């Protein structure tokens, strides 16, 4: 028996039991992200069913668990490795572009992610990088959890949309098929009918009229199906909008909760006795002030001044001192 070269295992062969694809076509290979050594499904069951045990590859010695084994997706193990690392890092570094006020910030964030992935993949400063990852995950525990929840939500939405689209497509196809079928049927039927009717000598004169009426009925039928098709499309579009909007409503609700602190717990949101219409107010004096650089530099805003004046105009207008202080 030829000694196996452990460092260069043939592509379709399990190095542990020496089975290959030729003899047992159902063979499936699994890998463990600890060491990425390829082992066949049967061997994984056999070796790791009783609990964690070391990798059967010589000079590896990593303790592997059965539940960590997974099917290899990519042929190239390097790619597989990078995907795994990337997934792990992105689970922690999970901010979206919308979370950053500046594009530059987002870019540097991405740069950081790439750095970490590269270092982990090529085993440069692994300990240090791992520590960095851990620190970041602890520092941003809450936002990470929130972002994960958000992406879950988005994923759910995506699934729902996909489902809806699938349903819509199948229904549309059915209708289309029905239309074609009906049309073919009709054509045959009309032909027969026309022949039948033309055969009867008494109605010779109306031969053209007969053909006309037959054609019209045919048109009507196909029109009916076309209408159904249009209805279906409208319905689909509506449902899709609802799903997308649902998400928006949720996010709107969250925003509404974030009102600024007021000493009255936000219960001052009653309609004011005036309407603020800065465009309709005319005041030559104030308008001159607004253009003054000195005022502009200080962040002076005419609208705020208007609002304040109006507010004061209706602060205490209906307080009748003589009456209220009588006691």
């Amino acid at each position, binding site marked *: 028996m030829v000694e196996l070269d452990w460092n260069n295992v043939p592509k379709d062969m399990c190095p542990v039991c020496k089975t290959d694809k030729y003899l047992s076509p159902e063979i499936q290979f699994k890998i463990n992200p600890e060491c990425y050594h390829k082992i066949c499904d049967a061997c994984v069951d056999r070796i790791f069913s009783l609990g964690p045990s070391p990798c059967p590859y010589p000079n590896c010695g990593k303790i592997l668990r059965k539940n960590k084994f997974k099917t290899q997706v990519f042929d190239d193990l390097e790619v597989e490795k990078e995907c795994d690392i990337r997934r792990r890092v992105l689970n922690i570094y999970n901010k979206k572009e919308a979370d950053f006020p500046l594009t530059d910030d987002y870019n540097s964030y991405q740069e950081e992610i790439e750095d970490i992935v590269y270092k982990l993949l090529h085993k440069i400063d692994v300990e240090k990088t791992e520590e960095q990852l851990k620190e970041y995950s602890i520092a941003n525990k809450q936002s990470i959890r929130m972002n994960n929840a958000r992406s879950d939500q988005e994923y759910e939405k995506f699934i729902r949309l996909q489902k809806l689209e699938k349903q819509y497509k199948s229904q549309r196809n059915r209708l289309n098929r029905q239309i074609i079928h009906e049309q073919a049927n009709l054509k045959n039927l009309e032909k027969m009918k026309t022949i039948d009717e033309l055969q009867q000598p008494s109605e010779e004169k109306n031969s053209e009229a007969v053909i006309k009426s037959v054609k019209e009925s045919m048109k009507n039928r196909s029109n009916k199906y076309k209408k159904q098709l249009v209805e279906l499309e409208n319905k689909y579009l509506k449902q899709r909008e609802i799903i997308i909007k649902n998400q928006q409503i949720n996010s709107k609700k969250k925003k509404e909760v974030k009102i600024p602190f007021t000493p009255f717990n936000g219960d001052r949101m009653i309609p004011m006795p005036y309407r603020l219409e800065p465009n309709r107010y005319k005041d030559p004096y104030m308008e001159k002030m607004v253009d003054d650089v000195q005022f502009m530099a200080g962040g002076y805003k005419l609208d705020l001044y208007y609002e304040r004046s109006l*507010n004061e*105009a209706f602060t205490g207008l209906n307080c009748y001192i*003589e009456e209220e202080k009588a006691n």
Partner: protein
Amino acid sequence: MISNDDLYRRSTQYRYWSFTRSKLEDLRILANKKGIDFTKRRLQDLDPDLPETKAIKEINISDYPFVTSDEELKIVTYYARKCKDLAKFFHLPSQARATAIMYLYKFYLAHSVMVYHPQYIMYTCLFLAAKVENSFIGINNFSKAIPKTTPDSILQYEYLILQSLRFSLRCHHPYQPLYGFYLDIQELLPKVDFKRLGRSCDSARELVNESLFTNVPFLFTPPQVALACLWKSDAVLVERYLAKKLGLKRKQIKSEMETIREEEVKEESTDESTVESTQASQQQPAGESSDHPSPPSSPQQNFDKLMLTIRKCVDMLEHNTMNPSMEEAKHISSKIRFCLEPLRYGKKLIKQKIATAALVESANAKRSNSSELESEPKKQRISG
């Protein structure tokens, strides 16, 4: 739900510095009484060996030149006007000027001019108001500009004034509400001629300036004063504006206005029939209390009530000004001097005695024209 009016009710201006008419008068009388008591104690504490003290003791205590409550208000108003001039000299904004004047009036609700001379209090009030209203003037520059003052002489009253104000420094003036109404009228009545509105508001602003020297700031809220001033300069505009604002229909306005006028006539007649405002103020709350249990809810009632308040306010603006002439002010001022420094009055009494003795002698000598001569030296004494 908290309305703007509720917010106003939480302000110190409403809680500490808004009174009914009778309460305001009571406070002034009380302050006056305190001042008189204080002066009497001062008289008792005088060195009994001095000839001046003996001269004072000889006269009846009720003849001593105590300042009356009315005179106090007059002299405070006089100095409030001085304060306005001084504020103009320093180019202070109207907000700061008005605050200084209000501080001065508020101070003399708690104290008497017989205890603290209004001139010095006025300086400190102005200094403090400038500081509060964000137009600070350094104390050295401030006292340099005013003759016969030192930084210390101004600052020594600062804490006292703060205490008398009950540390409530914020003053709500009608200027800002007036501007608010100016804007809101533009929005609500777009057809109103812009120039006319501007003119009305300018003259209303002048009236607001004048309103500071009356009791109005203590009796009405700033928006009410602003409306009253605007009404005085352009009655039709304000009535139309309020009618539209409160949702009255055109026909209703006319009838409502008539009823209000009738009520006004009645009220004025009661005002005239009763001797002074004390009795009138007693009557008015009694008349209103019948309406009080059912607070007005319909637009007409609201409109009525607001217009009535505005009318009252206008009435106060027109009749309740205490503007002393120069001579009057001088007379009161000398009285204050005597209360603050009783020995001066003693000196005056002694001088008078000598003068009358001399007069008697000269009268004896000449025996004629004595009546003319008698009046002359007295005049000199007073002015001296």
